[in-house]
Structures are given as structure tokens and as C-alpha cells.
């Protein structure tokens, strides 16, 4: 099977400033991978490179074996601060539908197939009951579900989520994480999640890309959850405690 992502000595730059380099790793299809690193380390830039919105400063990046390309239908994307951007001008249902029909010219109405897929995407995130409401009127957790539904409606093979857990309370974080685990199990979709905190995701992660000291690394989750590495990554003493439920990080 083709790897979902293959990086070969990839580096990323913002303008003329290199933000990270020496990214060489492959991520198998069906992985759930966290993207972690301090603020400004280039996490969003990494997603933009996969989406074809920014090109790699050097090196070779392959997405399902192909060069990254804007408009890649195999990728569903949820940007950061999604709900604030969308505002209150549209119902959730119509917003989700745009994920499928928004690139089409002309006035043709949504087909019954379109509508069925919108229903299916809303059902997959358990957001059917808010479909007729405006995104801005929903709770943070519901907003994130609808955003994921929009990314899912094109039936992508990869989901890129930029800080989906930001501004959510512990319960809602847990629910979104559970949802991601289900999506991966049911749809065999590869998921990349930008997060600041690995803890809530530990139960589902298969690996992590960490942007550290200007380099991009990838490790299977067992290797990443390491006191020395995490201490270095966050520049704060961190201890890994293994429990029956999984690993827990604590401040050392």
C-alpha cells in the first residue's frame, strides 16, 4: 500500500526564513498522527504544504504517492478558528454541503446523491440535530463536529485538523478524540491533528510529527512519549507516568 505521506529531506520556509528542515519520514495510511511543536514552529505550514497551498522550500513531499496539489479531493481540511471565520451567515447543513458542491459553477441544484452524502457526513459526527442551525449558535464541541462533517463530505482519504481541541473543555475534547478514533476505524482515513497537548489524544495516536529545534521528526507514539524528548520539546521538565489507561505526562 502507498504511504499516506512521504517526506524526503523536506524543509519549510516562511518568506526567506527557514522554519524547519531535514524532514525525512513516511506515514502509513490509516495513521492518526499528532503534529506538535512550540508556537511558530511551522505546524500550520506543514499542513499547508500537504494541501499544496505552500510549496516545500526544498526536498520532496508526496501525498499518496503524488506531489501535493491544491484542490486535492483526497484531503479534508479543518483550519484553525474555523467557526469564527465562518460567522453566522449560513446554516450548518448548507455549510457542510459546500464541502461537496462549493467548487461547482452554475446553478444546478444539489442532487439526491449530494443530499444523501451531506446527511451521511452529519450522521458520522452525530450532528444531524444541529443541521438546521447556524454554526455561530452552537457550542464549541458542536462547531468542531460540523467542521469535521464538512471535511468528511467529500469522502477524503486524509483529514488535516488544525487545533481541533483548542477552546474545548475536557469533556468535549474527549468526545472529539473518540470521534476521530471512530472515523479512523470506520473509514480507514489517515488523520493529522495539530495539537498543543498530546494527553487527550494518547489513546488513539499511532505517531507524532514533532517540530523541534528547526527540524521535523516523526516517531511512532511509543518513541515520542519519552520524558527526555518531551522535556526538550516543550522546554519544561516533563515526566511520563505509565498507567493502566495509558501514559500521562506530569510536570517533573
Amino acid at each position, binding site marked *: 500500500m502507498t504511504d499516506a505521506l512521504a517526506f524526503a529531506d523536506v524543509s519549510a520556509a516562511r518568506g526567506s526564513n527557514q522554519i524547519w528542515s531535514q524532514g525525512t519520514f513516511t506515514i502509513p495510511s490509516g495513521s492518526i498522527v499528532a503534529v506538535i511543536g512550540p508556537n511558530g514552529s511551522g505546524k500550520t505550514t506543514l499542513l499547508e504544504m500537504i*494541501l*499544496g*497551498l505552500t510549496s516545500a522550500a526544498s526536498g520532496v513531499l508526496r501525498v499518496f504517492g503524488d506531489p501535493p496539489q*491544491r*484542490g486535492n*479531493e483526497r*484531503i479534508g*481540511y*479543518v*483550519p484553525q478558528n474555523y467557526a469564527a*471565520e*465562518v*460567522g*453566522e*451567515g*449560513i*446554516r450548518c447543513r*448548507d*455549510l457542510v454541503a*459546500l*464541502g461537496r*458542491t*462549493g*467548487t*461547482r*459553477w*452554475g*446553478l444546478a441544484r444539489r442532487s439526491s446523491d449530494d443530499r444523501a452524502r451531506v446527511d451521511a457526513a452529519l450522521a458520522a459526527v452525530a450532528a444531524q440535530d444541529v443541521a438546521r442551525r*447556524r454554526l455561530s449558535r452552537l*457550542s*464549541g464541541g458542536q462547531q468542531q463536529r460540523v467542521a469535521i462533517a*464538512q*471535511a468528511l463530505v467529500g469522502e477524503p482519504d486524509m483529514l488535516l485538523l488544525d487545533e481541533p481541541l483548542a477552546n474545548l*473543555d*475536557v*469533556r*468535549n475534547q474527549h468526545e472529539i478524540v473518540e470521534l476521530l478514533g471512530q472515523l479512523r476505524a470506520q473509514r480507514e482515513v489517515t488523520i493529522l491533528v495539530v495539537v*498543543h*497537548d*498530546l*494527553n487527550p489524544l494518547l489513546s488513539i495516536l499511532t505517531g507524532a510529527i514533532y517540530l523541534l529545534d528547526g527540524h521535523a521528526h516523526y516517531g511512532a507514539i511509543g518513541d515520542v512519549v519519552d520524558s527526555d524528548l*518531551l522535556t526538550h520539546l*516543550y522546554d*519544561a521538565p*516533563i515526566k511520563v507516568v505509565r498507567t493502566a489507561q495509558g501514559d*500521562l*505526562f*506530569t*510536570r517533573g
Partner: protein
Amino acid sequence: MTVHALLADVAYQPDWLDVLRSDFMRNAFLGGSLVAIASGLIGYFVVLRRDAFAAHALAHIGFPGATFAILVGISVTLGLTLFCLVGALAIGALGKRVSNREVSTGTILAFATSLGVLFASLASENTSTITSVLFGNLLAISNGQIRVFACFTLLLVVVLAVVGRPLLFASVDPQVAEARGVAVRGLGILFMLLLGLAVSMAVQVVGTLLLFALVVTPAATALALSARPAIVVALGTAIGLASVWMGLVVSAMFNLPPSFCIVSLASLVWVGTLAVTEVARRRRFGTVVTHGGHGHHHETSRLSV
């Protein structure tokens, strides 16, 4: 003139039906309706894109266009349209939906208005022409203007029918639209040009200073009532049409300026709608307001790294 005499002027006009049947009223209804349709179509996108201030600025850019036309002796419609389209390109080129575009847009607005003042003083035209640019002169719409309005409105309908859906995507959700391959920036500039066309028409109906109430207010009213794109466009157009028609009737009945009547009606409908939807919302959600789940901080042994 005493206040009493002034009030006598605005009294009920028994011959208002005859006034409504006159040729200039026919043109006023036609021209006003075309502008209401154009505004209803474009207004939803203006509100979605948070471009209301740009619409307002474009109207002010039309002002020097009109006074320049008077100065050099070309048609006012032509001058208005040219300036609005060039202004639209300039604002569009400033970038997509940059939130701090306000300062640059405001500066262009002020500069344009000052140019208008300069051209007006050079043209030594009587002030009634200036007044009609600032406040609109629906009762003096010519057959030629109607033809231009019809072409512009048709163009707007056709272009929006083709680009409507990607434009909607790019308007509500520019980042995802960009990633999905929609030409967000190009659509933004195209949208500004369409807005320039609509504004150049609306200026001739309600004037530079009152344009907001015809281009933005009906769409905002519709958006308070519905969030289904097609319904919002239809409702916004209907509210605009009703404001124009009823405004003209009231203006004929009581000898009031049509701009005043149209804008007042559109504003009243807006205020009324906001009040009603707010009350309805409070009734529906009033009991669960305290249930919000935000701001809880649980002290746990976990470290948020």
C-alpha cells in the same frame, strides 16, 4: 417659510394616484425595482464577506465620478460607473478579507469625497445636481438610465448564477475554499466589480449617503430571518422591492422625498425584524442561558503541555 407652511407641503395629496400613474413614477418604479433586485442578490455576499464598509466607500467613490462627469460634460451614469469600477478594483486589490482593511478603505473613501468636492466647485454647477448625487433622485430617472440599469442587473444575475456557489464557498469559508482549489482571490476581485456595478446604480436611486440602506440593510434583515442562502437572497430582494414600492407610494401620497421614504421603510423593517427575532430567541433559550459549558478549569494531575 414657517414650520406650519412646511408641514402643509407634506400633507396628504389627494391626487397621489395620478402622480403614481405619471411617466416619471413609472421610471422610478422600474429603476428602483432593478436596483432592489441587484442589491438583494449582492447584499447577502456583502454581509457574509463583512464588506459593508467597502460598499459604503464605493458609494462615496461614485460621488467624484458624478461631479467629474458634470465637470467634463459626460453622462453622470458613465462617470459614476467608471469611478465605482476603478474603486472596486482598488479595494479588491487590497486583498481578500483582511480585517484591518478598514483604514485603507476609509482613507480611499475620504480622499474620494474630497475629490468630489473639488470637481463640484470647479464645475460651478448648481447645488441641486450635487444634492441628487448625495441623496439620490429617483423621480428624475431617464429612459436611458433604465436601459443601463436593466443591462447591469442582467449582467449581475448571469454572473452570479455562474459563480454563485464558489463565491459563497469563498465568502463563508475562504481557507477551506482555497485548499479545495477555489480561486478565492480572483472571485474576490470579481465580486468587488459586481458590487461596483450595483453601487453605481443604487447611488442614482437613493444617493451616496443613503445607499447602505438599500444595498446592505435588506440583506441583513433577511439574514436575521433565515440562514439558508437561497432564502436569504430571495427575502432580501423582496424586502428591497417592498421598500422601494411602498416608499414611492408613501412619497407620492404625502409629497415626501422618495429616498427618505424608501430608506426609512428599509430601516424600520430591519429594526422590527431584529426586535422580533431577538425576543423569539430569548423565549426559546432564556431558560438555559446559565448552562454554558465554557470556562471550566478542572484541576487534574494532567499537565497541559
